């Protein structure tokens, strides 16, 4: 047992850190630190910088842009990127549909889609959840009938993040209504500009617009856009969700947020002294730091086990990372809200991104984004398989209950 990284790993970490420091545009970094929303262009710009460096899709197969890094290197890369703090490459492409196409897609699909995913030439969104299929995803109803070399898709998807920006959507659709619910599902790639698709925004409690409803009204999708085999889509979805969870601890992001929290708590005055010197507030910060340290160690144990097993089989322990990681992000967002006190109140979101609005901020510069962020972070224990679903997985897969 040894906590230290090897000299090679440390050299690698330093290289990644130096790159993040020099290559991340200051405007994007500032938005990340302040917790302001990123524009589509910010994400595209950054991912293309990463891709030019060859680092947008390090975990992919080498022939499609993968770097062949070890699990430890991948961990260090993600951790440094999160701590920079830099946005991560668009996960719907890079971590979700990309690995599915690379693993289950045919040659033509790989050729056509993978390079454009890596460079964010195509913006992908995820069409899994439906109004009647949330945690019980397999009860989804959106149908696809195969007619003359096309699938005719009808139904509705929801909670579709960034559908408003998307060029493509990967969907789970029901191709065999007679089969048992997991067995009649297929994995289909659909271009967003196809006639019959309507995107309707959903405004969330933070005032933002991240998610949407997507309606399909007899949408004609070429049959060549089916991934793998018909009615095997549930397997590909399970593979995808396993990948999604492995990066979900978000330790680096939480470290960066704690750093921000401490900086702001040093600026805010409470009872004539900086809030950071308040014993009760200090103990709250220390408590979340302990949780985060434990999570970091747990994640390193998972990474080390992954290295030892050499496999990319998702570890059920990733459910622990998801639960703890989301809880910690939420606690930090609570503390950030508490830091600004009454200046959490003014609702400044409507002006964000409004070019005509050039009034000074109400209250301290840093206050405006903190309440919306707190509200927004409630999503982390819901998405990616809610924390309750994760506990079901732990009970079944680890505890044998």
């Amino acid at each position, binding site marked *: *047992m040894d906590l230290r990284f090897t000299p090679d*790993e440390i050299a690698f970490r330093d290289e990644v850190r130096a790159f993040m420091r020099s290559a991340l545009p200051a405007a994007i970094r500032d938005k990340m630190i302040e917790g302001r929303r990123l524009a589509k262009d910010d994400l595209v710009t950054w991912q293309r910088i990463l891709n030019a460096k060859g680092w947008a899709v390090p975990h992919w197969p080498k022939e499609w842009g993968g770097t062949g890094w070890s699990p430890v290197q991948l961990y260090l890369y993600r951790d440094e990127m999160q701590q920079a703090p830099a946005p991560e490459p668009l996960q719907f492409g890079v971590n979700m549909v990309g690995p599915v196409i690379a693993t289950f897609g045919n040659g033509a699909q790989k050729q056509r889609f993978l390079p454009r995913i890596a460079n964010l030439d195509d913006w992908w969104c995820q069409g899994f959840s439906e109004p009647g299929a949330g945690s019980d995803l397999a009860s989804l109803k959106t149908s696809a009938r195969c007619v003359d070399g096309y699938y005719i898709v009808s139904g509705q998807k929801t909670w579709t993040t960034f559908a408003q920006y998307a060029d493509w959507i990967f969907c789970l659709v029901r191709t065999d209504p007679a089969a048992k619910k997991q067995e009649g599902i297929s994995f289909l790639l659909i271009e967003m500009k196809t006639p019959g698709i309507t995107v309707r925004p959903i405004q969330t409690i933070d005032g933002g617009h991240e998610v949407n409803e997507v309606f399909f009204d007899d949408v004609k999708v070429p049959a060549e856009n089916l991934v793998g085999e018909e009615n095997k889509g549930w397997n590909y979805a399970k593979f995808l969700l396993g990948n999604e969870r492995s990066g979900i601890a978000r330790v680096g992001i939480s470290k960066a947020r704690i750093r921000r929290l401490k900086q702001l708590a040093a600026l805010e005055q409470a009872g004539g002294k900086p809030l950071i010197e308040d014993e009760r507030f*200090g103990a709250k910060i220390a408590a979340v730091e302990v949780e985060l340290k434990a999570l970091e160690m747990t994640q390193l144990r998972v990474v080390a086990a992954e290295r030892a097993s050499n496999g990319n089989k998702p570890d059920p322990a990733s459910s622990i990372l998801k639960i703890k990681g989301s809880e910690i992000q939420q606690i930090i967002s609570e503390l950030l809200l508490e830091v600004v006190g009454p200046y959490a109140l003014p609702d400044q979101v409507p002006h964000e991104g409004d070019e005509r609005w050039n009034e000074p901020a109400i209250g301290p510069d840093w206050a405006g984004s903190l309440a919306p962020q707190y509200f927004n972070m409630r999503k982390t224990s819901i998405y990616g398989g809610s924390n309750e679903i994760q506990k*079901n997985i732990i009970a079944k897969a680890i*505890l044998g209950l």
Partner: protein
Amino acid sequence: MDFALNDEQRLLGESVERLLADNYTFNARKRYGQEPEGWSRAMWRHYAELGLLGMPFDEKYGGSAGGPVETMIVMEAFGRALALEPYLAAVVLAGGLVRLGGSEALRADLLPKIASGDLILAFAHAERQSRYNLADVATTARRDGSGYVIDGTKSLVLHGDSAARFLVSARLSGGQRDQAGIGLFLVDAKSPGVSVRGYATVDGMRAAELSLSGARTDAAIGTPGATYPLIERVADRAIAALCAEAVGAMAAMHELTVDYMKTRKQFGVPIGGFQVLQHRAADMLIALEQARSMAMLATMMAADDDARERRQAMSAAKVQIGRSGRFIGQQAIQIHGGIGMTMEHSVGHYFKRVTTIDTMFGDADYHLGLLAETGGLVAA
């Protein structure tokens, strides 16, 4: 970055576990607890034969120069078995003080006797008023000719009623909570002016109140007046060891609980089928894994020379262990229901052990305070 054990460490773990599986059933433990000293001399001899009692010491003192990882392995197994013997007191604490701070002559005299199992040495440090502050020492030491005279009382001396000799901390100079001015002295239990009042602790282990009234000694560990850093170093080793022991106890409680959920039937079905209990068991597993991660951190940092980093890691580990232990223990009792409340079932005994571990060398709140005072783990 590596969390795996090497072959020798795996072997060590297997042999300790085998010894305990054969000799430390829950019923055997009950018998050992009723022996005169409240623990088993026979098991102590087994540990000596297996090389556990000298493990941290150099080979020339009858040891095998094991490090914190070896201690972790042994303590985790002791935690699972709820072992009653004075391993922490004699080997980790007193042995650690002699090993890291004693003169060559003292090491050569004492360490082989600890390793062979012939000497139980105990560390007498805490006092009624000191709570968890390691620097709070009111007991005094006064120079007298070639030796020292010690006056004061020491509390909760772990296994103090079995000890033939004590390592007593006492103040030569400075204010009651100053780090400077503390010395460590070797005092014979039979010396005039020494009285020992032994008692059982709530977890079934033993401790003693020690009173020293003009007790004389010629032997000091380290430089009298400058032993605080040594005390801190050894306390940190003890914290790492206790974290490992607690993980063993928590893992055992979690396994007992999950097994119980699979076999206990109510309403005609195993209670493990109820989602509310499944989620509780999942929460317990999360608490256990987080604790295990921090016990590993404590182990890997226990010998670190950077006192600030080391202390912070120990504090963080102690917070996590305290909180996880309390949660897992309480839930284990709850899920067992009435049977968990009885002395006949082992789960309550594990619960009591993790409860006492939280109060040793600083509880979760105390260490949270220390962490906050020292700026926390993430640099601003």
